[in-house]
């Protein structure tokens, strides 16, 4: 397998030798940011296209076909339109917060995005409390949504924001619990290390029953975190018109739209990293030939493939179920997911202590 860290080191050495240390750091930062942003945007476009096509397939229709071959250019035309769309200044809105809110949402998702390990060494942020950092960074997106709802001076937005506050903060808990379950199994919080450990078997197999339960809880909580159906109460089309982003037009809305899809990708990416082995290929103990063959597929393809599969599952869920009601959302979290998650954590700990894992 290719180790991208050698390439990164080579670039690092070149920059350090060509210019003073401080400048080199600045250039490195800019390079990393540009790479992350480009990747972010291209994945966003891919996700939106995929959503439209997958959704259409579940609904026995075709989806975009007329803009470009198979409708491939559809999302680009949407982007062009959104960029030139008028941005409306809302009377009585809190200007600063109103304009800040979409950036907060996008920022939080970009920071989380940069923690994803696309292949060995291909990761922008990697340090010893990586998982912890991801959770912290992703949860400040809530702030953006709350502010958007609050500052728009619109009652629908307000209700949407309040709903999202209640919902996302609750679900943060069971998401944390299910990730914690896996941290117990791995014994580390560093993302690169977690993935490295899984080259000898994915955690979802090694942790067997508690890991599978944690995975399911994680998917449910992750779905709720991204505000997608059946948990799309903050936007709830048929109830609150467009929820917290009712008053946003043009790119303001575009940011929320992109962030929603990217959050889904990130949730799926984290699931891949900690449950399905990240970029690690499929490893079955005892089948050396098979394992060896699997290693020929590059790690980034493994990662993206697995992530897109989980994204597809999330879309499948989204286009099947009706929306929950706010009290049911909270009942599901506090009466089911949290207790089950806690017990699951206990089971996992016992398993690890007794050595009942693979």
């Amino acid at each position, binding site marked *: 397998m290719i180790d991208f860290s050698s390439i990164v080191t080579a670039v690092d050495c070149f920059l350090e030798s060509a210019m003073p240390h401080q400048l080199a750091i600045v250039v490195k930062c800019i390079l990393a940011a540009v790479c992350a942003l480009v990747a972010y945007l291209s994945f966003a476009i891919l996700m939106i296209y995929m959503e*439209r096509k997958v959704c*259409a397939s579940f*609904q*026995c*229709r*075709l*989806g*975009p*076909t*007329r*803009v470009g071959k198979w*409708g491939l*250019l*559809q999302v*680009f*035309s*949407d*982007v*062009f*339109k*959104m960029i*030139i*769309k*008028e*941005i*409306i200044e809302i009377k009585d809105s809190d200007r600063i917060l109103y304009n800040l809110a979409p950036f907060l949402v996008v920022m939080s998702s970009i920071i989380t995005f940069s923690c994803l390990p696309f292949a060995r060494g291909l990761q922008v942020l990697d340090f010893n409390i990586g998982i912890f950092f991801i959770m912290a960074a992703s949860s400040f997106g809530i702030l953006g949504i709350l502010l958007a709802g609050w500052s728009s001076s619109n009652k629908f937005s307000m209700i949407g924001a309040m709903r999202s506050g209640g919902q996302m903060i609750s679900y943060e808990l069971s998401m944390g619990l299910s990730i914690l379950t896996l941290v117990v199994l791995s014994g580390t919080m560093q993302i690169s290390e977690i993935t490295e450990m899984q080259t000898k078997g994915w955690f979802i197999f090694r942790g067997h029953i508690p890991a599978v339960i944690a995975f399911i809880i994680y998917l449910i909580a992750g779905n709720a975190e991204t505000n997608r159906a059946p948990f799309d109460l903050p936007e709830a*089309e048929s109830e609150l*018109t*467009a929820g917290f*982003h*009712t*008053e*946003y*037009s*043009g790119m303001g*809305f575009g940011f929320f739209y992109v962030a929603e899809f990217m959050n889904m990708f990130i949730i799926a990416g984290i699931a891949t990293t900690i449950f399905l082995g990240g970029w690690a290929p499929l490893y079955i103990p005892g089948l050396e030939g098979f394992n060896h063959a699997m290693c020929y597929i590059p790690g980034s393809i493994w990662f993206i493939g697995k992530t897109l599969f989980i994204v597809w599952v999330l879309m499948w869920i989204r286009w099947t179920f009706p929306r929950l009601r706010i009290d049911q959302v909270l009942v599901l979290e506090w009466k089911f997911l949290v207790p089950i998650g806690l017990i699951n954590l206990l089971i996992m700990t016992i398993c690890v202590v007794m050595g009942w894992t693979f």
Partner: protein
Amino acid sequence: MEIKRPKIKSIPYEEFKDNDTLEAMIAQINKERTNVLLGKLDDLINWGRSNSLWSLTFATSCCGIEFMSVGAARYDFARFGFEVTRNSPRQADLIMCAGTITHKMAPVLKRLYDQMAEPKYVVAVGGCAISGGPFKDSYHVLNGIDKIIPVDVYIPGCPPRPEAILYGMMQLQRKVKIEKFLGGKNAHQNRKEIPDEPIIVTNYPTGEDKKE
């Protein structure tokens, strides 16, 4: 740069209706020439705009059900990229006025139109929105939404079948494709707030003065 005749996949230019109005618009815009570079950019922007017309879900009566049919599996306007119907007027590009507009609804329609972000378009679907249709001599019906907001495309029918609505949307695409966004006035800014009084056939039956 000259604005060319807009092309739509699968329907040749000549087979479209009302080409002369379109050509008149092109001639009007071509009077103010701009340079080539801006023209190219314009083409790109118009291409983006015309393929991403998100409509406001606005339906008052029968035509709204046909509009729902267009969105459903059989006609699937997602093929054109129109499927993102927005419920908030801020995010919508066009208002598809499907159904009768009454006196009580007129201020609401006007306000919705004003709430939309530029560029915005209006499609009048069905007889009621075009002229009051079946109810045009009623005391409580607005005789055509073009009295209060400027209309870009008229789709006649009562209600028009889903293909006719798609056809109307393609007509709108053609109109969007000849607009100028940069260097030159936008066709929208040229537009008068309330257009000319449309011709209306005045021959209301009264029920009394008819031959036995």
